[in-house]
């Protein structure tokens, strides 16, 4: 019985979304096959990892992931430059977590200044994330969109509760937009439809189906991503064709596995390595499920995932 490789051709394609400017601009997505299936179609762009930085010092990050940034993390500009110049980041994700009312409740003006300063210091593309407080984000993200006008940033996250204002600002200032919904393919589809109905170009969207960490609901994110990607490719469902975001670091570095010292749980092994592996394995799984843009924290985890991507594509 001769073997004929059962290759598939897909009717749909993932939009290629360009972010940033000049030589350091990158394109996320663009493939017309399942993740890493370069044997049966086009995968023109490698997945991109953005280093996560924030507007306030990362005092709630575990020690192991604070450590690599300890000399720069007091100042978002230094932090961003360190990621770009020393760590060779291909993109940076600035999370304005300090604007959250339960954190420092930093003002819109503070946020605008941080974004302006960071943008002034780097060339690589910038992802600008709010604090995930729907109301505050509406105000903060509108203002920072303006401050970053025409820099082709990614703004996020627009959610059901605040998408109108944030999307309008992204349109007015020529940015790409992350649309986030909660672990449900239908909610994700619905939000994309609402956004396109208000005039947002669907080819400028990035879908965030909501991430989760290894061991803490990863299987839900994994399967929602696979289902979104299958809908995009096999059913040519245009509302499911934006590339996807895996917001990895923020979920991973909350888990007990990235905190608990080996002395408490000897059977879990060395803590620094465990935390890094937790982030790298979560990220890899989401890439395999369909994410094209990752937001990550630990340089060693980022390095390993970059090597993995090279092996996948090579």
């Amino acid at each position, binding site marked *: 019985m001769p*073997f004929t490789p059962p290759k598939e051709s897909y009717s749909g394609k993932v939009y290629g979304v360009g972010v940033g400017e000049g030589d350091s601009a990158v394109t996320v997505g663009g493939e017309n096959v399942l993740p890493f299936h370069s044997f049966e179609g086009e995968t023109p762009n490698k997945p991109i990892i953005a280093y996560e930085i924030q507007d306030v010092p990362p005092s709630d990050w575990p020690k192991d992931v604070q450590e690599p940034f300890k000399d720069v993390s007091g100042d978002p500009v230094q932090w961003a430059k360190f990621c770009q110049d020393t760590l060779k980041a291909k993109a940076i994700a600035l999370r304005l977590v300090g604007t959250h009312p339960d954190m420092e409740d930093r003002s819109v003006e503070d946020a605008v200044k941080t974004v302006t300063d960071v943008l002034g210091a780097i060339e690589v593309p910038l992802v600008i994330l709010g604090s995930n407080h729907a109301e505050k984000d509406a105000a903060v993200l509108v203002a920072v969109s303006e401050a970053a006008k025409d820099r082709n940033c990614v703004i996020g996250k627009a959610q059901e509760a605040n998408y109108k204002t944030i999307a309008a600002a992204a349109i007015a200032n020529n940015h790409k937009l992350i649309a986030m919904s909660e672990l449900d393919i239908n909610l994700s589809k619905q939000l994309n439809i609402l956004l396109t109905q208000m005039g947002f170009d669907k080819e400028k969207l990035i879908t965030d189906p909501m991430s989760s960490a290894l*061991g803490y609901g990863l*299987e839900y994110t994994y399967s929602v991503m696979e289902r979104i990607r299958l809908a995009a490719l096999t059913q040519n469902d245009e509302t499911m064709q934006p590339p996807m975001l895996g917001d990895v670091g923020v979920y991973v570095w909350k888990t*007990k*596995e990235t905190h608990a010292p080996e002395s408490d749980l000897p059977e879990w092994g060395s803590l620094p390595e465990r935390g890094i592996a937790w982030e790298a394995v979560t990220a890899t799984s989401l890439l395999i499920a369909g994410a094209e843009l990752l937001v990550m924290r630990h340089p060693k985890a980022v390095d390993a995932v970059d090597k993995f991507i090279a*092996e996948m594509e090579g």
Partner: protein
Amino acid sequence: MALTGVAIFKLLPKTNCKKCGFPTCLAFAMKLAQRQTELDLCPDVSDEAKAQLGEASAPPIRPITLGAGDKAVKMGEETVMFRHEKKFVNPCALAVEIKDTEDEAAASEKVQAVLDSEINRVGQFLRVDAIVLSNDSGDAGKLEALAKLVAGKAPDVPVIISTADAQAGEAALKSFEGKKPVLYGATADNLDAMAAAAKAAGATLGIKAGSPDELSELTEKAKAQGVEDIVMDSGARKAGEIIRDNTLIRRAALKKSFKPLGYPTITFAVREDSLLEALVVATGIAKYSSIIVLSSIEKWKNLALFTLRQNIYTDPQVPMQVEQKVYDIGEPAKNAPLLITTNFSLTYFIVSGEVENSRIPTRLAVMDCEGLSVLTAWAAGKFTATKIAQFIKESGVEDNIEHRELIIPGYVAILSGAIEDKLEGWKITVGPREANALPAFLKSREAA
């Protein structure tokens, strides 16, 4: 593809004698096609038809067991490409490689690490499942010595013997009689001798090829030699090759009923860089490997890989859950605190783990919410004041305690008033939001 009802009907006696319990041969054939009845029910079916139908009704990926006894691992039998379609059936086996060029101390240490690898996560016992014995030396004596060492120290751990030399394999297999090992290393050059050695020892044959195409030729040849149990290595080593070959192989087996590739697969993920190795293993876990071979099994790496395997292989329809009841943690006295949570396994094990950490004997009432987490269950209307009140009353816990105070999760603080209304005479206390604050919370109450 399995045979259609009509195709099966053509192979039946067509007498409509009803001895099978169905009114007609066609009705019986239709049920057979849906795998809802057994061919044996027809006493008159010909041997030839039996053979043809047996072949067609066999699972598309052959079930094979690795090892014997409590630590045996089932492989194959998968039915879908994506986990949301249906549960992935048999979690892949993780195997660590020991080379026969390593000295005895290093080898013993690895064997011990395998024996010590078991971890309990969310109620499941997870471990490194198997050991690969590699004949890197090319010396039959060394492989045999390693086999004796492993069989002596870890008699229950399944093994895969890796060699290109059938005689060396034969000698090593002697240490694992009746234990269903794999003899890996059959290629176009040595297939006959390796097949004979595997058959004689009752071992599964591991075939290594340079492509899925060559692999399918070799499995056919082995089958012609009478070998039924095979694991397949397409030769893929890089991550991109692994996802490609594993995908093509599983598609061929499931969608084209291509029998020559309808066997479990073995993937070699071995890398110098242990973290990168973990990511290649992750590819195999997510994408269709049945056995994955690692070079090292540090505890941090095991934990991450076991957890990923558990996540990928859970049932997408039914969350992992625990039994509804009031659990005693420690030996709670009549005045010990009473906590309530939902029966999602992850929730239960996190909360009970933190209560154990507090070392304060406690009762934990676990309510059936169809395996949903606290907030999900609340949002889905399954963790409501009425249902909580009813559960507490019916649980009989009132007979075992002398107080009337129930501690609820901080995330559902909003329920406290309503529960007090429904549970007469009870006081509701709102606990912390995150379980990791429970030890401090319970201790401070104790002190007060």
